[in-house]
């Protein structure tokens, strides 16, 4: 048990934008352990694993597998060496069956054709061997997220993975699905597999991992036995200081109704109904949280609110006025601000500098431009102020936004959206994929704006976040609200999880609209 199966020695990786992702990292795995790799987003965990899986090439360093130095130039070589990776975003073909996905690329053949019977049999055998109980003839597109993940794991096992890398496996799971995953992981461990578990959820790590390695800013902060550290100590090693998880919230001070939605129905571009008859009101001075597993209509709802989808049924009023026929510019001049979930697509122009990115929503205001020309000095001054006020780590306002880290890019988006005198903020996954420090900062800003009288609609898959910030919290499931909670502090994650999975449904939805 105690023999070392894998060693990564003095790994250095510098990305082409100058980010030092791994600064002399060493990592050692014992056979048959579940080893947590943890750190904030941007700490370099994913990079290190991409190097191990052959996706990225390091500047220097050595990988020793079973006592032999190996070069892993691409994922195929990694798979041959018995390393498997389950990515955060699944790499499955939706229109294929489970069996077809599992054997993809290593198909059993009959002549020039794939032997489908054998494929199903092999898939069933490996599924039973690990007690995954899957119906291998089912199409992947019909599966819930938790099952898709199992398919990913089986795919790796089928290719002979001894070492399994799981990149934030629980990020997309409900608490119940997470429990089930852990049972499976323990079983894998008993069978002698070694698992690298990437996460930043400390309680999960305490629950399942034997040892943990902490990374911060591309540096190794040490490897420990899980039992030797308290969660508080771990988080201090991760972030470098104590993290505020509880915010002091000022008393609720509700004002005018800012947003009012009635019987809203939205279809996606493929013609599938994604929002199915929503009603809700949001007043100035409150944070209205919307929790739920991603893909239950939250994106479409957010895009309607932001004016990006105009083709919807039902009513959307902003400060009493119907939003039908209002352009995005009109909505914005009424005080609408939007933090999009996909910041790289909607939130920035990555090839342009900070200055250009910070004023896209307000460049035509009097303080920044005359009739024809932009006012260079005031813009530069404001850019400097925003960079320091929002703690954006960048060389100067001339730095290209694409060169920044995820957290800093999100701060650019937030700085722009929050500096335009917002009255209604739609924040869709505002802290997803960014470091703890930046997330904490953005949450604080959201609370500040609430206290100033903003109406905040917070859509998030991060349960801690919605539970901590929301004054009222609704759960979205299949385009509808399955529950609404006026007293968020009395909620537990398990309870929320049941509503998120649609196991429980509250028909009355009392308190979702104001009388």
């Amino acid at each position, binding site marked *: 048990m105690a023999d070392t199966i894998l060693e990564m020695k003095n790994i250095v990786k510098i990305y082409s934008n100058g980010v030092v992702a791994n600064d002399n990292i060493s990592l050692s795995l014992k056979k048959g352990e579940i080893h947590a790799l943890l750190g904030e987003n941007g700490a370099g965990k994913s990079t290190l694993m991409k190097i191990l899986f052959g996706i990225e090439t390091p*500047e220097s360093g050595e990988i020793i597998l079973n006592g032999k130095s190996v070069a892993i130039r691409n994922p195929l070589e990694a798979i041959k060496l018995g390393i498997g990776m389950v990515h955060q975003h699944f790499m499955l073909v939706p229109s294929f069956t489970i069996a077809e996905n599992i054997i993809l690329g290593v198909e059993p053949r009959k002549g020039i054709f794939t032997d489908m019977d054998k494929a199903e049999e092999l898939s069933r055998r490996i599924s039973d061997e690990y007690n995954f109980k899957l119906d291998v003839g089912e199409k992947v597109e019909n599966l819930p997220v938790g099952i898709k993940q199992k398919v990913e794991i089986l795919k790796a096992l089928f290719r002979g993975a001894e070492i399994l890398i799981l990149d934030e496996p629980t990020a997309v799971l409900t608490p119940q699905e997470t429990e089930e995953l852990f049972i499976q992981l323990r079983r894998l461990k008993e069978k002698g597999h070694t698992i690298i578990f990437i996460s930043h959820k400390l309680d999960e790590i305490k629950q399942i991992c034997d040892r943990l390695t902490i990374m911060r800013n591309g540096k190794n902060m040490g490897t420990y036995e899980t039992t030797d550290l308290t969660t508080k100590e771990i988080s201090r090693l991760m972030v470098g200081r104590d993290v505020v998880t509880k915010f002091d919230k000022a008393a609720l001070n509700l004002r005018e109704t800012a947003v009012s939605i009635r019987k809203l129905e939205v279809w996606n571009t493929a013609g599938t109904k994604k929002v199915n008859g929503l009603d809700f009101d949001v007043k100035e001075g409150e944070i209205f949280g919307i929790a739920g597993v991603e893909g239950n209509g939250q994106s479409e709802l957010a895009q309607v609110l932001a004016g990006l989808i105009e083709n919807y049924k039902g009513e959307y009023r902003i400060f009493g006025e119907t939003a039908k026929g209002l352009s995005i510019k009109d909505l914005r001049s009424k005080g609408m601000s939007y933090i999009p979930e996909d910041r790289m*697509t909607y939130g920035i*122009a*990555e090839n342009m500098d900070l200055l250009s990115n910070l004023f896209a929503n307000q*460049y035509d205001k009097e303080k920044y431009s005359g009739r024809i020309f*932009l006012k260079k000095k005031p813009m530069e001054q404001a850019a400097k102020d925003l960079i320091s006020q929002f703690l954006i780590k960048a060389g100067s306002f001339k730095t290209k936004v694409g060169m920044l880290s995820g957290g800093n890019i999100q701060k650019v988006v937030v700085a722009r959206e929050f500096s335009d005198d917002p009255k209604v903020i739609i924040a869709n996954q505002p802290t997803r994929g960014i470091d703890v420090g930046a997330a904490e900062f953005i949450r604080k800003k959201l609370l500040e704006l609430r206290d100033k009288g903003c109406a905040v609609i917070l859509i998030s898959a991060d349960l801690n976040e919605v539970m901590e910030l929301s004054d009222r919290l609704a759960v979205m499931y299949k385009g509808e609200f399955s529950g609404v909670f006026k007293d968020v502090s009395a909620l537990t994650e398990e309870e929320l999880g049941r509503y998120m999975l649609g196991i429980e449904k509250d028909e009355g939805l009392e308190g979702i609209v104001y009388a």
Partner: protein
Amino acid sequence: MLKSSQFNTFRTALSIAIALILSFLVIFLVSDQPVEAIMRMITGPLSSKRLFANVIELMIPLIFTGVSVSIMFSANQINLGAEGSFHLGGLVAAVVGLMVPMSQGVHPIAAILLGGLTGAVFAAIPAILKIFTTASELVSSLMLNYIALFLGNYILSYYLRDTTAGALTSHLLPESVKLQSIVSGTNIHIGLFIALLTAVFGYLFLFKSKLGYMLRISGENEKFAKYSGMNIVTVILISQLLGGFIAGVGGSVQLLGMYRRFSWAALLGYGWDAIIVTTLSKKNPLFVPLAAFFLAYIRIGADIMSRSTDVSPEIVAITQGIIIILIVAEQFLSGYKHKLVAREARLQMETEGAE
């Protein structure tokens, strides 16, 4: 060693150098007098005032179409409308010159402005097609260029043609409409100043004005622009109108400065060349004159070479092709760039460690 911030300039320079070297190699392969040919190509344009003037004369239309394409490409309107706008600009200037008598001072101004307006309207057609039918502006502009050409041929044949002349050509343009030469003994005309002013205007527009800012943001990321509240339809229209106007002015200026008659029975290709100019100048109108000068210089150089040696001037097409491929190929030197960046990052780490 190089800094990573200087990398792009270095890359462009190296691309040009490699392209020239490869072209010279080809010359060595095909020519009996390679050294002389290369010398003629490099130093030819400097050997007389008249030849150098040819470079400047060729540079003028390239500046106009280069600025025009820089603006349209900045808005991500990848299209070749500049070619047709340029052609129609020349045509309209000829029509105004021949059919609308005016006094010396206003005649060229009216001809150029009308030429520009025609170019603007012409380039707006693909924009309107895109807005209402999402037709690709690249395809529609290419097709429309033929309409511009044959419309020009029709008007030339039926309304402007000088039947006493042997070839298909218009009557002589009146002196009142022609642009004056500013350097005696050459054809360098006052259009040079208009071209340079246009480059400055293009720079101010794209990088200093509100509209230009909108254009560049939309060009970089249309979804982001839309989300920010910008009107994409306006952006598409303005970029095409302005780009077409500048190309149209270019066509008018070219006709009035360089020709005695209108005889363009084929497209002249300055719109296509503008893509080379735009690529070299990285869509910055301020660099367009430099890029246009470079292109004009190697073209005239190749002409001179072909006249006195056995190498044909088309060798320049090879040079141009290689330059464009190297500049556009993202992977070219990307390994070197990565090394530069990594070295700087290491240095920074060390200095931070020392503090």
